[in-house]
C-alpha cells in the first residue's frame, strides 16, 4: 500500500519528465517498426513470388531474432556509437522477422481462384498485387506489425544502457537510489501499459482491415463491382 502511495507521489513530482520519456520510448519503438515495414513488406512480397529466396531470407531474419538484445546493442554501439539511432536501428532489426514472415504468409495464402479471376479480368501483375493480394493479406500483415511493435516496446527499455533515454531511464534510476522499488515500478508499469495499448489498438486496426468482415458488410457492393 505504501508503495502505491510512493508511486503516486513519484508521478506527481515528475509528471513532465515521465511523459517526456514515455513519448520518447514510444517514438523509438514506432520508428523501428516503421523503417522495418518499409523494408520488410516489399521483401515479404518478393519472397512470396520467388519461393527459393524465402528459406534464406526467413532463416536470416530468424538468426537476427535469436541474438540477445543486450548483445545486439553492444555490437551495434561499436559501429554506430551511443544514442537513440543505435537503439532505433536494433529495433528495426528485431521487427524484420515478424513483418517479413507475416507478409509472406499473407500473400501466399490468398486464394488461387481470386488470383486467377483477377488475371482473367485482364489485370496486370501489379494490379493483381494492389487490388487482390494486398487487400486480402492486409490483416495478416497488420498482425505482423502488431507483434513487432509489442516486441520493440519491450526491447526499447534497455536502450537506457547506451544513453538513449526512454522509460528504461526511470527503471535504471530506481535501481540506483536507496529505496527504489516505487521508481522501478513507476517506470515498468507505463512500459507494460504502452505494450498493452499498442496491442489493443493494432488489434483493432487488424480487424478493421480484415477482408472477411468487409465481405459481410459490403458484400453486395463488392459483387456489383
Amino acid at each position, binding site marked *: 500500500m505504501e508503495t502505491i502511495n*510512493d508511486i503516486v*507521489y*513519484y508521478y506527481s*513530482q*515528475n509528471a*513532465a*519528465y*515521465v511523459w517526456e520519456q514515455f*513519448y*520518447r520510448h514510444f*517514438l*523509438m519503438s514506432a*520508428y523501428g517498426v516503421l523503417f522495418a515495414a518499409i523494408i520488410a513488406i516489399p521483401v515479404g512480397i518478393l519472397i512470396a513470388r520467388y519461393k527459393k529466396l524465402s528459406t*534464406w531470407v526467413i532463416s*536470416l531474419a530468424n538468426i537476427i531474432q535469436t541474438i540477445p538484445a543486450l548483445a545486439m546493442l553492444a555490437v*551495434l554501439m561499436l*559501429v*554506430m*556509437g*551511443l*544514442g*537513440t*539511432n*543505435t537503439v*532505433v*536501428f536494433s529495433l528495426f*532489426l528485431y521487427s524484420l522477422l515478424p513483418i517479413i514472415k507475416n507478409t509472406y504468409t499473407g500473400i501466399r495464402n490468398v486464394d488461387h481462384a481470386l488470383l486467377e479471376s483477377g488475371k482473367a479480368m485482364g489485370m496486370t501483375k501489379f494490379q493483381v498485387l494492389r487490388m487482390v493480394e494486398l487487400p486480402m493479406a492486409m490483416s495478416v500483415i497488420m498482425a505482423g506489425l502488431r507483434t513487432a511493435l509489442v516486441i520493440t516496446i519491450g526491447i526499447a527499455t534497455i536502450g*537506457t*544502457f547506451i*544513453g538513449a*533515454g526512454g522509460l528504461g*531511464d*526511470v527503471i*535504471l*534510476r530506481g535501481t*540506483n*537510489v*536507496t529505496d527504489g522499488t*516505487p*521508481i522501478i515500478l513507476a517506470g515498468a508499469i507505463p512500459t507494460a501499459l504502452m505494450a498493452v495499448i499498442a496491442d489493443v489498438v493494432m488489434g483493432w486496426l487488424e480487424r478493421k482491415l480484415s477482408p472477411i468482415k468487409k465481405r459481410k458488410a459490403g458484400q453486395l457492393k463488392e459483387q456489383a463491382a
Partner: protein
Amino acid sequence: MLKKRHLLIAITMALAIVMSGCSLPGLSGAADNTIKVGTMGTSESQIMGNIVRLMIEHYSDAKVEMVNNLGSSIVQHQAMMNGDIDISATRYTGTDLAGALAMDPVKDPEEALKIVKREFQKQFDQTWFDSYGFANSYAFTVTRELAEKENLNKVSDLEPLVSDLKLGVDNAWLKRKGDGYEGFVKEYGFEFGKTFPMQIGLVYQAAANGKMDVVLAYTTDGRIAAYDLKVLEDDQHFFPPYDTSAVTRNEVLKAHPELKDILQKLAGTISTEKMQELNYEADGEMKEPSIIAKQFLEEHDYFEDKK
C-alpha cells in the same frame, strides 16, 4: 551462401552508418547542431548534466541531447575521445588524475585542478572548466550529537577517543593501497578501536542509528544532511581532492563559442552542502534529476546576473 552472408553484413553495416548520421523528427539524433552531454548513472552526475543542458538551452539556440548512464569516468572519457559526447557533466580531479592521466595523486586541490586543466588541453584537446564548487570525496563523518559532545571538527580531534570508537567503512577502502586505511594510519598516526567493513550505502544509516561511531562517507551524499551527520575536516589533506567540473571537447567550443561563457557561469555556484541537498531530493524524495535541475536554475534565475 557465404557470399550472400557477406552481402548482408555489408548492407547492414552500410545502413547502420547511414542511420547513425541522420536525425529523426521527435528524437534529436546526431545532427550537427546537437550538443551531447554525457552523465554517469549517479544522481549527482545526472543533476549536473541536466543543469548544463538547461543552461545551454537557456542561453543559446543549440539543441542538447543527454547521454545518460555512462558507467564510469573512464567510459565518459572514451565517449569524449570517440566524439560520442561533447561535454561530460561531472569529472572529478582525483579520479581523472589517476584514471585518464595515469598520474600520481596530488594533495592540493588547486594544484590538481591546474594539472588536469593543462594535461587535458595538451593530451586530449579538451577543456576542463573551473569547479562547480563541490567535491565528492571520502570524509570521516559522525553524528552531530557526538560532534557537539566531544567538540569534534577535524579528523585529528578524534585522536584522544579513537580506541573506543567503531569505524564503519566501505569494503574496498580498508585494503586499498595509497589512500586506504593503511595510508590513513601512517598519515594521522592513530588507529580506530574496531573497523567494520560494509557496503557504502549502509554507512549513513549505521551512523544515524548509533551502530557505528564514525563512518567513512561520500561528501556529497544527501543522507549526510538527511540524517544530520557532521563531516569532519580532513586537516592533514590525506584524501586526494575530488573537485567536480565539466569537461568539453575543444571542437565543440569552436563550433559553439558561447558555450565557454555559459559553462563558466556555473563555476563556484554549488557548494558541497547544496549538492547534498540536491542529491537528497533525488535519492530521498524521489524527484527526477531533470526536475531538480530545473527548479535549482529557476531559483537562481539561471545565473543571469553573473557575468
